[in-house]
């Protein structure tokens, strides 16, 4: 026994030494890193070395970067900036967050990364994000400031008293709209609904009256997605009860829509809607994207769509083309509508999603990354990442570009639709900012009418700033409990009369009062007038 313990002690000592060495090595590496940083900045003016860059960004679910020179954007960037740019990409969502967090936790922080507004706080607090003072400036990123973001808006976007995140350019319109099967309406002799009640009537007819004429009871009025976690905000019952977007300001009151008292009526209405049996019963377990699958399979007649071209005739991945392809029905026709078009369908976008720099990257890596970002924000980069190469995928004469759809399909769409990966920094649907017009022969009159319809919707003002969760508060726990309670009301309780009690629980036990009061203080600061939050019932 004795000898074993002696050996054990010896091995333990050895392991301590090994781990101590490991630490020394770690420090050594850090020192090495900063040394090369100095060298990098000292070398300014001399021939630039090739730099390896790694970014982590969002992309649409179908996007995949092809290998080698097929990815002409990477080729251009690599040559232009003398870098080796490796982009990691995923659709935004929990998995995106988890992957990024795992990488950060293992000290493999991407040089530039995209993250949603609220999560960015955590990275800034932990020092993962590098301060941008003196980096993100009009001198360093002229295009970014010229076309997209005003310098005076940046302070509003600072959190924790640090300038460590900057907004990515954002679209002034979400192009958020319900879409309805116009051909089904025609089959049943119905009109496009103009109010909530009409919308419900249409859902009933779509469910019960066999709109596709296949003599089978296999259609639903509406489908949505709840990711298995929450009541979907795609239900029209929110806006019906005045709950638009995530947060609104009403008078001098800050409203967190999903925990507001009016949720009681929203839940009641949603319960009633579900009881009618007109909603796809899979909605709660549907992941984002599955609602479109249901719609394109001809199983549901109304769905909420995002993005300008989601139902364009020639968008091969869009609702319209897919529905025709899958159902084989040439008459399929998705038309945009919103029952609340007159009173307000949604809130205007705020700069919410930022890009961050890694605090571990060298100055040179950040410098090159900024040059590339600014190129993406400029005319040349924008055109290439949205329309392909001049002379190949499009031709240009003056301020007009004409698209060559066949080349685009062959070189981009069929190569994994990879341009959407590079569009993360400019998720904008058109080059109007550069005063360039697109002549796209595939845009039909119907497509133009869709855009016109959606542009006519009334959009309500936003709270005007992006919000930060108070230090030490657990917003995720609050939202999780909130989702749990709401789904419980919908499925397991006879009515929504418990909501005020549940709201009380969220406000006190889960810290809702403190979180939202802190939000209200930020809105007060942004809007310059006193806004308060009322947590009482």
């Amino acid at each position: 026994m004795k000898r074993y313990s002696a050996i054990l002690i010896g091995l333990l000592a050895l392991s301590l030494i090994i781990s101590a060495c490991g630490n020394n090595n770690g420090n050594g590496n850090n020192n090495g890193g900063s040394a090369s940083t100095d060298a990098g900045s000292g070398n300014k003016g001399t021939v630039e070395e090739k730099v390896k860059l790694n970014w982590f960004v969002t992309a649409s679910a179908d996007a995949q970067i092809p290998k080698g020179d097929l990815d002409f954007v990477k080729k251009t960037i690599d040559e232009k900036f003398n870098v080796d740019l490796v982009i990691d990409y995923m659709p935004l969502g929990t998995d995106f967050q988890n992957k990024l967090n795992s990488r950060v936790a293992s000290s493999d922080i991407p040089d530039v990364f995209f993250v949603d507004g609220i999560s960015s706080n955590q990275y800034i607090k932990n020092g993962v994000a590098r301060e941008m003072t003196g980096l993100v400036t009009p001198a360093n990123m002229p295009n970014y400031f010229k076309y997209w973001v005003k310098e005076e808006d940046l302070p509003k976007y600072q959190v924790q008293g640090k300038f460590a995140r900057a907004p990515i350019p954002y679209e002034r319109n979400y192009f958020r709209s319900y879409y309805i099967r116009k051909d089904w309406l025609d089959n049943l002799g119905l009109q496009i609904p103009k109010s909530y009640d009409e919308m419900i009537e249409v859902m009933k007819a779509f469910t019960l009256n066999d709109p596709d004429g296949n003599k089978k009871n296999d259609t639903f009025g509406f489908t949505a997605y709840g990711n298995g976690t929450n009541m979907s905000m795609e239900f029209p019952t929110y806006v019906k009860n005045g709950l638009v977007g995530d947060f609104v300001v009403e008078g001098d009151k800050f409203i967190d829509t999903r925990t507001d008292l009016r949720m009681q009526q929203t839940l009641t209405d949603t319960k009633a809607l579900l009881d009618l049996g007109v909603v796809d019963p899979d909605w709660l377990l549907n992941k984002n994207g599955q609602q479109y699958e249901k719609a394109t399979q001809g199983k549901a007649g109304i769905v909420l769509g995002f993005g300008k071209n989601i139902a364009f005739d020639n968008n091969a991945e869009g609702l319209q083309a897919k529905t025709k392809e899958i159902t084989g029905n040439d008459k399929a026709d998705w038309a945009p509508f919103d029952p609340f078009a007159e009173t307000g369908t949604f809130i205007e976008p705020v700069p919410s999603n930022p890009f961050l720099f890694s605090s571990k990257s060298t100055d040179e890596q950040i410098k090159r990354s900024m040059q590339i970002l600014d190129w993406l924000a400029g005319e040349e980069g924008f055109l290439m990442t949205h329309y392909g190469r001049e002379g190949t995928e499009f031709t240009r004469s003056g301020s007009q570009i004409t698209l060559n759809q066949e080349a685009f399909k062959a070189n981009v769409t069929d190569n994994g639709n990879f341009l959407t990966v590079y569009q993360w920094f400019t998720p904008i649907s058109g080059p109007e900012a550069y005063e360039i017009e697109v002549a796209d022969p595939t845009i039909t009159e119907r497509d133009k009418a869709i855009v016109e319809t959606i542009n006519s919707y009334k959009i309500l003002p936003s709270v005007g700033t992006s919000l930060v969760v108070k230090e030490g508060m657990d917003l995720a726990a609050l939202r999780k409990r909130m989702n749990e309670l709401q789904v419980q009301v919908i499925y397991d309780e006879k009515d929504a009369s418990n909501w005020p009690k549940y709201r009380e629980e969220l406000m006190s036990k889960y810290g809702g009062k403190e979180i939202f009061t802190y939000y209200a203080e930020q809105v007060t600061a942004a809007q310059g007038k006193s806004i308060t939050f009322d947590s009482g019932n």
Partner: protein
Amino acid sequence: MRGTAPAPALMPGERMKPKWMRTFWRYRWLYLFMVPGIAYYIIFHYIPMFGLVVAFQNYNLMEGIFGSPWVGLDNFRTVFSSPDFPVLIKNTLLLSFYRIIFNMLPDLVLALMLNEIRVRWFKKTIQTLTYGPHFLSWIIVYGIMFSFFAPGSGLVTTFFRDMGWGSIDVLTNSEWFRPMLVLTDIWKSTGYGAIIYLAALAGINNELYESASMDGAGRWRQLWHITLPGVRDVFILLVILRLGSILDAGFEQVYIFLNVRVYDVGDILDTWIFRRGIEQMDFSVPAAVGVFKSIIGFVLVLGANKLAKRFGGSGIW
């Protein structure tokens, strides 16, 4: 080797070495063979254990283990005073007990049944078929379950509805959630779990059966008096090992099957740790839960081993 190498005679003038050094020298090659195994455990199991100190710190990624401030037992207080904690513990323990009870017996039963089959090709076929699902990932199993039981479009749900038998709701029903987890787990892992018992069964001396049948014991008698005692040690060993991980209720499966309607029965310690640690980048509190889990597991393994010995069997050590 033992006994063949006599202790080397003491050279004149050489000092008498302590006894342990002499034994160590005598078995030096055996110790040398041990080194890779021990190194593995040290590098991959013992050194990472120092990471547990983050449970007593307010861990900050950039500061690291050596820079983060110490907070004593604050993280444990946070855990034990959390409103979720009692539910998490209850769900975890229940699910674990279900798994021990309902997953270990089918393994044994399947092994016994396979053991009775005398036609070789049939036995091989069944064995292959039953352990096939072990190699499917939980994502795929969930995909299969979803296609069968999706509340709206699932194959089985649609069948039930069309037959006029009403609706069934397996994926989002609190009452069904745990049985569903256990049943899918049985489907997936029973065949594989039976292998270890089959090995134990193969090790039973055939003469025992022969003499038993000479004494007039039938199949059931033989099963009771020879086969079951033959696999008892393996069974107890597995129970002890499983008790050690009683606070692991199968993260991967639960995480994939979980949805908001079954949080009350399906949220376990590990899913909570994952949410808090990876989704929210809060490492200290989950680490505290990890320490707590390990201590419980450690105590249980020691206790179970002692019990197993007391009741006449042999423990692990």
